């Protein structure tokens, strides 16, 4: 149990997917103009990430890895089959499909949640934070529970970063910024300062 708690803390604070690995910058820069939409996108990312990382783990384990198909079908012809070169294509297809599916299910059963997530669900397909978490899961060869915990943690890390950025940009509206630095420029510099603050966590031993 302790191990999983430290994995969550690590993926939120120490190795924040946005501030340490730069994943999901595009939507981060575009959406953080407004606090309400940031909270919406944050929720959607946590939700989809917790879903797709374990889903892709199953696909990797039972379809793509060497001998994965043989291990559960026991068909001789499939022995030694290694489909891992199809990894990228399958992962992005899984993400696109599950985002579509989640959208339809939420729309049917919880219209209020659907309205609060709004346009962000389809947008998430091309959010690098989602695909990135899946690829990190493969590179670090997590097991199923680790994959789920990591998916949740890194989604939460993204949500935390985008909401705090939106709050800062709200305050920034009334400050006097040089013309060329307005908008994108000052946001980059501020993200640098936030990420500097998060560096302080890197000394924490868990």
């Amino acid at each position, binding site marked *: 149990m302790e191990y999983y708690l430290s994995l969550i803390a690590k993926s939120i604070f120490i190795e924040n997917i946005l501030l340490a690995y730069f994943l999901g910058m*595009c939507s981060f820069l*575009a959406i953080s103009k407004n606090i309400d939409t940031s909270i919406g996108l944050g929720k959607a990312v946590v939700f989809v990430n917790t879903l797709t990382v374990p889903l892709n783990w199953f696909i990797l384990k039972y379809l793509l890895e060497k001998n994965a198909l043989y291990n559960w079908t026991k068909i001789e012809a499939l022995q030694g089959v290694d489909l891992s070169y199809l990894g*990228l*294509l399958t992962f*992005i297809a899984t993400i696109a499909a599950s985002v579509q599916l989640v959208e339809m299910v939420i729309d049917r059963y919880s219209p209020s949640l659907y309205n609060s997530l709004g346009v962000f669900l389809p947008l998430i397909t091309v959010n690098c934070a989602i695909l990135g978490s899946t690829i*990190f899961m493969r590179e670090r060869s997590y097991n199923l529970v680790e994959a789920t915990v990591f998916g949740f943690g890194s989604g939460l890390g993204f949500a935390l970063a985008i909401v705090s950025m939106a709050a800062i940009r709200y305050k920034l509206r009334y400050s006097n910024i040089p013309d060329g630095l307005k908008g994108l*420029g000052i946001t980059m510099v501020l*993200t*640098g300062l936030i990420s*500097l603050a998060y560096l302080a966590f890197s000394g924490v031993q868990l």
Partner: protein
Amino acid sequence: MNNKKIFQDPLISDNPITRQVLGICSALAVTVKLEQAIVMTFALTFVLCLSNVIVSMIRNFIPNNIRIIVYMTIISSLVAIVDLFLKAYAYDLSKELSVFIALIITNCIVMGRAEAFASKNALYPSFLDGLGNSLGYGAILLIVAFFRELFGFGTILDFQIISSTYNNGLMTMAPGAFVILGLIIWLQRTLTKYVEE
């Protein structure tokens, strides 16, 4: 729009990173050293030019509602080619770049140019647009990587410039990347007199 303008605009005035705000993730992540930035530029040029050409060739046959999925399939196949090629011929580099080659799939430049330009224009202009955008992207990458490697390790392309005891961890880590890119955006926007409202 003539071909020359299509090629030239994304280089400076309509640069994908500083102006269109596309593809920021990789611009920050692979700029620790110049060598990585150069490889990334080549990889993106290959993917972007080919995806623009392919999308433009089949633009009249793709049904409108499934176009995103079609683009995704084309792009991820091209990225898989680059990924496997680097693993085979430059294993160390591909380890250093780790997930960021794979993440070209979700690099907004590729998707954005396919949607905004290649799906509406003929083959040759689409190719030029891809080339111009990837070179504009590469230019920013090289500038950021130049400063980060020089001030981080004191080297340029692994040649020692500042004394070998020099070492500035802040530049090689995330905050340095954000601040340097922020300053370059400021410079580019001041030079082109662009103000964001």
